[in-house]
């Protein structure tokens, strides 16, 4: 799965930063700003004092594109320090604020204090020594060699750093969204307010030294007085619009996830504009992107490798967030290098691989106990990293007033028992000449109950098991004019789902099931692939990326058993294969089913061109050949985007993209026994046609500094149309095949975000989205798709409570949902799910002794009762209940 995201084809990076005017001796200095125009693996600041070597520190991503770090107090020694900022992307490194030759200067002295400076000779060099006015003048180092009488150089007027011939359209790295094992290793310091100097690789030291040859006296003076920080609230170092992406993903960093009081991935996704999350009767989490909901249309990746199961496209993605560095959410088609499955959205989970060790444990309501650990260490050219999550819960047992079992009219309860194990280990070897090699593997195992049951009856003893194994091998090498990379991957998923279609001791007239009516599904799927790509810097501000990918996926085992007689609905006794049922792996003539295997060959090419400083154009094309039951089918995915930055801090974007959507094997070939318990479920349809999504998006983003703080605003308008949409609409009440909506479905809407950060610990954020989705194959008065909230709003505030405590408060709002009306049965099986509002409150400590953090989390603190839509709302009128109030405590330790 080739997944080199936006950054790999994006223009160069810039760092919007307001340099501090002055620093105080012995006090740490915070450096912060916003990155635009690329996907970074690291953002480093090089600092030195007079006549010192450069020392490197790392800035840390806080949220979105916002980076921050603090120079330690030990670094803040009068008279001054100078610094410049370097961004590391997949394609290489580039100066994004200042440079070794023209760094930014920060005088160090008490605020308002005048400094007296004098040039003195130290050895063969003349250096400047400063003291605060009123102190003794600094001594000469060489009393026998007094400083020549030189006039004080005139301080240059404040000005912005001149636009420099920055590297043109450097190939970008798209680490976090790539399916590749890992982007360049992020040599970050431990998270925390204070940066620690990361020992730069030897090659980087050499590069830094090469970039800053020993300065002559004159050069050093010019560097000192020329690197004045310009005035202004916000400045753009490189004014070209080529730095700003035409896509606008949402990124939730580890720090942001912590502030939002979420424990699992889907809780975090609920707080993203344009994304709606719900659970179904079986307990599966479902994501709707911009009003459209279907598992095969949202691509989930973990460190760039697909998580979606080949058969039914469900993803074991409800992972704890503790080991995640970030979650990236793209709405609509991402760039052309993103693989198949990205139709309405892409969600990439990126795990932490920063050096150090971190672990945490938590417990709470519902007999919930979690443990998490992640860490990495570097030994020479080798880096080893790993993470592990163990999570178990009994869950809340919520009342279900009525279900499809009319023989039992008593109240029933949900069962939300779950055990999850997620473990990974990997290593990276960096060789100067040969490039970087990486290998990693991961195991995911889940054992849970069905939340309610398989279809419309509460079956409390269902057992659903899911085992996933992933492995990746990768190589990449940075060239002078770009980068090459090759990746190979493998994944295998097995599911064993034993459903209780009725509870035990079920009877209905002459029919009796002491163990309950049962149905067992066992599937095994496997996939492997290889990809290669190159990113090249071309003349005239062009960045070209091209790649090829080959992949094979297959269902290697399939089994379905039932104890229900399809003719009489009676009890067969033991589970057995229904007579005459054709599994997806069978063609009925002894051969492989046409949907059981899928070979995909893909090529992509993208180019980003910056013809003017304020305009950047991105174009891409993806071509896929996909093996489908109807034959080898081509898919085209053009992309085009334009970014304009008419003024500082304002970026205007527009883009168009098309995604190819192949039906899943389940949609093609799902087979179910035609017994009375399955009436109304969906079966495969080999006649399905592929679908296309065309998406248009336009938006604006504005960043404004407010003293120490900053305000960020973002707005987006979108329009999406899916041609030949694959849908499940019950038209008969019997086993109904998946079908295409020939006239398609479409959605239109708005998304807005605002974020105000007043201090490092005082934040306010708000986002809202509105969507209007329609099924165009339905008469006009019945066209609206209303099973997903049309209006969503989320907001939060983080407040410091003294030096050690923080209070986070998060609210979620959603509008009313009602049944769709695409068929008569949908029309008469009505439901109304009222709008809901839930609130989260969290108390957490600042790091104690730099290593320990404590947290107390309350979710849905007002115990708001709300539910999601059920498969048969006429039989389960109360819907699928969502959790009530919860309380968790957590302790974290990091080294």
């Amino acid at each position, binding site marked *: 799965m080739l997944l080199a995201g936006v950054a790999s084809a994006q223009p160069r990076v810039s760092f919007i930063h307001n340099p501090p005017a002055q620093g105080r001796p012995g006090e740490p200095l915070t450096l912060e700003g916003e990155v635009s125009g690329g996907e970074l693996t690291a953002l480093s600041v090089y600092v030195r004092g007079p006549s010192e070597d450069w020392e490197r520190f790392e800035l840390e991503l806080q949220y979105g594109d916002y980076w921050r770090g603090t120079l330690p107090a030990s670094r803040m020694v009068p008279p001054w320090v100078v610094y410049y900022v370097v961004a590391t992307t997949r394609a290489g490194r580039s100066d994004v604020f200042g440079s070794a030759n023209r760094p930014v200067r920060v005088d160090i002295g008490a605020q308002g204090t005048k400094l007296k400076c004098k040039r003195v000779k130290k050895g063969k060099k003349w250096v400047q020594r400063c003291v605060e006015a009123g102190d003794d003048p600094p001594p000469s180092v060489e009393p026998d060699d007094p400083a020549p009488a030189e006039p004080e150089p005139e301080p240059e007027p404040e000005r912005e750093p001149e636009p420099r011939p920055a590297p043109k359209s450097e190939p970008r790295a798209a680490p976090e969204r790539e399916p590749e094992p890992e982007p360049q290793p992020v040599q970050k310091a431990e998270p925390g307010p204070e940066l620690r100097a990361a020992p730069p690789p030897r090659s980087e030291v050499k590069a830094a030294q090469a970039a800053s040859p020993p300065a002559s006296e004159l050069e050093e003076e010019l560097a000192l007085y020329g690197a004045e920080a310009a005035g202004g609230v916000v400045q753009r170092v490189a004014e070209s619009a080529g730095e700003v992406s035409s896509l606008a993903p949402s990124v939730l960093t580890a720090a942001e996830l912590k502030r939002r009081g979420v424990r699992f991935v889907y809780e975090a996704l609920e707080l993203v504009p344009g994304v709606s999350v719900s659970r179904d009767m079986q307990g599966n989490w479902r994501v709707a992107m911009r009003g459209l909901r279907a598992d095969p249309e949202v691509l989930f990746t973990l460190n760039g490798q697909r998580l979606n199961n080949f058969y039914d496209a469900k993803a074991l993605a409800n992972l704890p967030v503790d080991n995640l560095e970030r979650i990236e959410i793209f709405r609509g088609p991402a760039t052309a290098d993103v693989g198949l499955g990205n139709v309405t959205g892409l969600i990439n989970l990126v795990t932490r691989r920063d050096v150090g060790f971190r672990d945490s444990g938590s417990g709470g309501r519902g007999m919930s106990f979690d443990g998490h650990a992640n860490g990495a260490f570097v030994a020479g050219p080798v880096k080893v990293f790993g993470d592990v999550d163990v999570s178990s819960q009994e869950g809340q047992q919520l009342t279900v007033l009525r279900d499809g079992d009319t023989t039992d009219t008593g109240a029933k309860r949900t069962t939300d028992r779950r055990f999850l194990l997620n473990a990974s280990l990997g290593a990276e070897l960096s060789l100067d000449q040969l490039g970087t090699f990486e290998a990693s593997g991961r195991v995911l195992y889940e054992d849970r109950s069905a939340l309610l049951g398989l279809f419309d009856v509460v079956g409390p003893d269902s057992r659903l098991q899911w085992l996933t194994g992933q492995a990746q091998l990768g190589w990449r090498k940075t060239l002078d004019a770009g980068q090459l990379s090759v990746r190979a991957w493998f994944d295998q998923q097995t599911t064993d789902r034993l459903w209780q279609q009725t509870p035990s001791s079920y009877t209905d007239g002459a029919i009796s099931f002491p163990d309950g009516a049962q149905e067992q599904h066992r599937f095994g799927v496997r996939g492997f692939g290889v990809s290669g790509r190159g990113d090249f810097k071309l003349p005239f501000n062009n960045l070209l990326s091209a790649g090829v990918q080959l992949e094979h996926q297959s269902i290697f085992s399939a089994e379905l058993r039932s104890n229900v007689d399809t003719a009489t609905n009676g009890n067969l006794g033991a589970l057995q294969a229904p007579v005459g049922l054709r599994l997806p792996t069978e063609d009925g003539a002894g051969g492989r089913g046409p949907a059981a295997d899928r070979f995909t060959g893909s090529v992509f090419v993208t180019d980003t061109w910056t013809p003017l400083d304020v305009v950047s154009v991105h174009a891409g094309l993806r071509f896929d050949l996909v093996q489908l039951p109807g034959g080898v089918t081509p898919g085209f995915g053009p992309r085009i985007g334009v970014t304009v930055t008419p003024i500082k801090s304002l970026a205007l974007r527009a883009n168009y993209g098309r995604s190819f959507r192949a039906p899943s094997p389940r949609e093609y070939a799902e087979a179910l026994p035609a017994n009375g318990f399955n009436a109304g479920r969906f079966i495969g349809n080999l006649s399905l046609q592929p679908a296309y999504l065309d998406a248009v998006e336009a938006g604006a983003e504005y960043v404004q500094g407010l003293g120490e703080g900053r305000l960020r605003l973002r707005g987006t308008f979108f329009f999406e149309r899916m041609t030949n949409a694959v849908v499940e609409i019950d038209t008969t009440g019997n086993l109904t095949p998946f079908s295409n909506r020939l006239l398609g479905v479409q959605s239109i809407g708005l998304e807005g975000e605002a974020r105000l950060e007043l201090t490092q610990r005082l934040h306010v954020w708000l986002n809202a989205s509105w969507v209007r989705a329609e099924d165009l194959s*339905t*008469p006009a*008065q*019945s066209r609206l798709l*209303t099973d997903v909230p*049309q209006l969503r709003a989320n907001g939060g505030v983080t407040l410091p409570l003294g030096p050690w405590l923080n209070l986070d408060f998060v609210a979620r*709002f959603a509008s009313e949902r009602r049944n769709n009306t695409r068929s008569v049965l949908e029309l008469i099986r009505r439901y109304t799910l009222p709008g809901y509002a839930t609130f989260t409150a969290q108390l957490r400590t600042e790091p104690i002794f730099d290593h320990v953090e404590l947290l107390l989390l309350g979710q849905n603190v007002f115990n*708001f009762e709300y539910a999601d839509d059920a498969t048969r709302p006429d039989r389960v009128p109360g819907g699928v209940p969502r959790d009530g109030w919860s309380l968790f405590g957590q302790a974290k330790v990091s080294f």
Partner: protein
Amino acid sequence: MRTWISLVTAAALAGCAAYNDQCQPLVEDPNERVAFVATGTELFLDRPNTRHANNALGQQAADALVWVFSGGNQEAEFAVVNGGGLRAEGLCVTRNIIGAGPLTDGVLHEIMLFANFAQVIRLSDDEVRAVFEHSVRELFGAAVDLKTVSPDGQFLQVSREVQLTVDCALPPGARVTSLHLGGEEVPSPGRPLETRSWRMATSDYLINGGDGYQMLEDAKEGPLRSVTTAQRFGGVDSNITAAYFKQSTYNSTEAEGFQVDPGRITFNNCAVPARP
């Protein structure tokens, strides 16, 4: 607190969300007239009158199924529609009686609520008889007050080609005393399928064994059955009936509107439904 939150949320989010009209059927123009109920007649849609007597709309729906297959290579010789497929309850309004006058497409689609596909199947003499025996199996005798019972939806309304006589005093399974299709008697015992087969049009719901028509489900996969789905009007029975009405004289004037044909099924010793 929850109530307050609900009210505030609803107030804040109201006005920006839109929803479908749940009382409108799934037709482009619900108010379009498709036919007239004939002057001086009424259309009864309660269960006794759709499941225990000749029903005007059920008969027209069956005639429409014959019409949609005409001219093709699988013409139907007769058609049946299950009485349970005619619904009085509608989407939001229950209609037990529709008086003389226009019948709109919207109301028609509320009555014929289940959008089943129209199919034709070849049956033998015995299978045809078995179908009609099953149809009248659960009819009530003359002494029963139909207002106190709920007749089964398996009872079949028939097209004009059918002349059926039933006697509710006879035991179930032997109630059909006379059966003619297109003027030709269906003998009992019947002839082999290869000798004489009957092409019957009905809904896929029945052909798949709905309402207990197991003999149809058993037959459909067999040789010579030639199960074919209607291609016109999406193959959907309610759409076919609307189209049939619109091109017929029933849509011309109220005087020429449709009404029940009492001669298609003759009931002996059977309960008679009253006016709803």
